[in-house]
């Protein structure tokens, strides 16, 4: 069974540029999460989806971050414009109803 797939794995951009990350969860997993992981820190929740509905986006900086999960499967996280402080790893995770969380390998963003 394929795991959670994220792309790109690495992205280097200059500040003020836009960037987008894509996540394909495990088939059949209703719940999808985007987490932010700063260096030396634990993951922090950005947004959680139940199917196509964003049920918890209280930690998402909505002035520059946006996310979508069309058709309740794949998801995209966008940052526009990126700032230096956005350099981090962006983790996607999914879980089935009542099941455990599975993480992707993450997308590492470097903003210069």
């Amino acid at each position, binding site marked *: 069974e394929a795991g959670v797939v994220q792309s790109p794995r690495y992205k280097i951009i200059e500040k003020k540029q836009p960037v987008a990350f894509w996540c394909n969860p495990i088939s059949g997993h209703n719940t999808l999460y985007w987490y932010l992981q700063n260096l*030396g*820190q*634990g993951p922090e*929740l950005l947004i959680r989806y139940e199917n196509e509905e964003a049920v918890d986006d209280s930690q998402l900086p909505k002035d520059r971050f946006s996310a979508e999960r069309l058709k309740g499967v794949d998801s995209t996280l966008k940052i526009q414009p990126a700032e230096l402080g956005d350099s981090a790893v962006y*983790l996607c995770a999914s879980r089935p109803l009542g099941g455990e*969380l599975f993480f*992707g390998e993450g997308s*590492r963003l470097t903003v210069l």
Partner: protein
Amino acid sequence: AQSVTQLDSQVPVFEEAPVELRCNYSSSVSVYLFWYVQYPNQGLQLLLKYLSGSTLVKGINGFEAEFNKSQTSFHLRKPSVHISDTAEYFCAVEGGSNYKLTFGKGTLLTVNP
């Protein structure tokens, strides 16, 4: 609100020694507890979880953890570590079934020969 405190940011040990990684949590509701491991440049992998029942939970790679409700702790242990156990370990709490997982800041376990 729920939170997790991992008391040690780094734990160096020698190979074949026992190790304990400490985790304390706070929550206003009953909790589910988890330990995840993260190897360099990889995502997080579930080691073990406590949902209910026996307070001693066994996971993969020889790790185990004990849920202590009175001390609000969920410490991770392994009786004999290997070089390959070198990684970052994260404790996480989920309040009841709210599907919101909160992570600690992590403990870097370094196993030396």
